[in-house]
């Protein structure tokens, strides 16, 4: 008699295969590296915060790629209302930019609390990392709305 097996059912989905899984691995990995490099510095710059900055664009991409169905609905509606692809891109860029800026704020606040100011280099880094956050947040959406399959979603 044939016996049902549950192992393939579990194992077929047990290993990370998606792009979002890879991003999660990279973010956790960077956090681990940051924790181990927290006291090291190079050319006057602490390496810990630099690693943190690297994790920002990846986290923004992960946020953008998660809940794709909801974002797709948003994009379809914006087009139906007469929007264009660059308007959608700017909308998501600003969302990613704002997310990044809010996320790095505790670091800025900590710096101000300890030294009383933020250096020009640090300000530039924060601006740069927020721009990267915006770009990485908007990139998956841009890829989606420029794809051939996008308009198929208007059909039932």
């Amino acid at each position, binding site marked *: 008699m044939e016996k049902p097996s549950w192992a393939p059912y579990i194992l077929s989905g047990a290993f990370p295969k998606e792009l979002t899984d890879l991003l999660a691995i990279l973010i956790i990995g960077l956090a681990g590296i940051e924790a181990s490099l927290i006291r090291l510095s190079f050319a006057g710059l602490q390496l810990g915060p630099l690693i943190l900055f690297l994790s920002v664009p990846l986290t923004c991409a992960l946020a953008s790629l998660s809940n794709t169905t909801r974002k797709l609905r948003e994009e*379809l509606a914006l087009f139906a209302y007469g929007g264009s692809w660059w308007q959608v891109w700017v909308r998501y860029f600003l969302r990613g930019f704002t997310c990044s800026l809010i996320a790095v704020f505790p670091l800025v606040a900590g710096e101000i609390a300890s030294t009383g100011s933020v250096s020009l280099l640090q300000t530039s880094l924060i601006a740069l990392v927020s721009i990267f956050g915006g770009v990485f947040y908007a990139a998956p959406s841009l890829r989606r709305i420029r794809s051939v399959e996008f308009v198929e979603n*208007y059909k039932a």
Partner: protein
Amino acid sequence: MMKYLIETVSVKMDYPHSDGVLKLYDEGVSLKVDQGDFVAVLGGSGWGKSTLVNVVLGLEKPTTGGVYFNGEDVTRSSFVKRCSLVKTAVVFQRPTAVPQLTVGQNLSLALSMAGVPKSERDERSRESLAFFGLERITKAYPESLSAGQRKRIDLARVLAVRPQLLVLDEPTGDLDSSASNLVMPLLRGLNRDHGMSILMTTALPRYASAARQLVHLKPPGFITPSNRIDN
């Protein structure tokens, strides 16, 4: 060349598949929508009604043939460019609304994108939502509503925008019979009383009869490598 709001000239679409080519509109679709026209495109499921809407709006490019808005060749132009030539609003087969915004906010956003002054937005939204019996769900989020309610929101949106040209892809899909019965008189009223031009697709002849002009689509052909050799 005479200027129509919309004109399609011998539009054909080929969809390559792994085992052949799906050919829509084998004889080419040529339709004209003039100011005040009400044109219905009638065809069965899978005959290319939604694809024709996408081609007219610039969301898909035809394999051959041309699309003209106000006499200008827009075959390779975007939806936004077409809207700048003819103020167009569209209701797709699948209801569309921004999920993070309430029903009222969605209408307000659509009206602002259509260039409606801020002072008029609230009143227009209220009126059009009331027409479809949706005034009580202004603060609801689209995802909490039924497919039929979301379809009515789409219709309320285009009613509020008051475009020059209204494009509807199977507007009675997802609606129950009472709501469907509301749609056709509404469209006739928009066309007759407001001079709004309408291009609508439908699979149901009884709805197509509401239009003043009818375009019949034919079933698609499918060319496989073997019948291509035969031909």
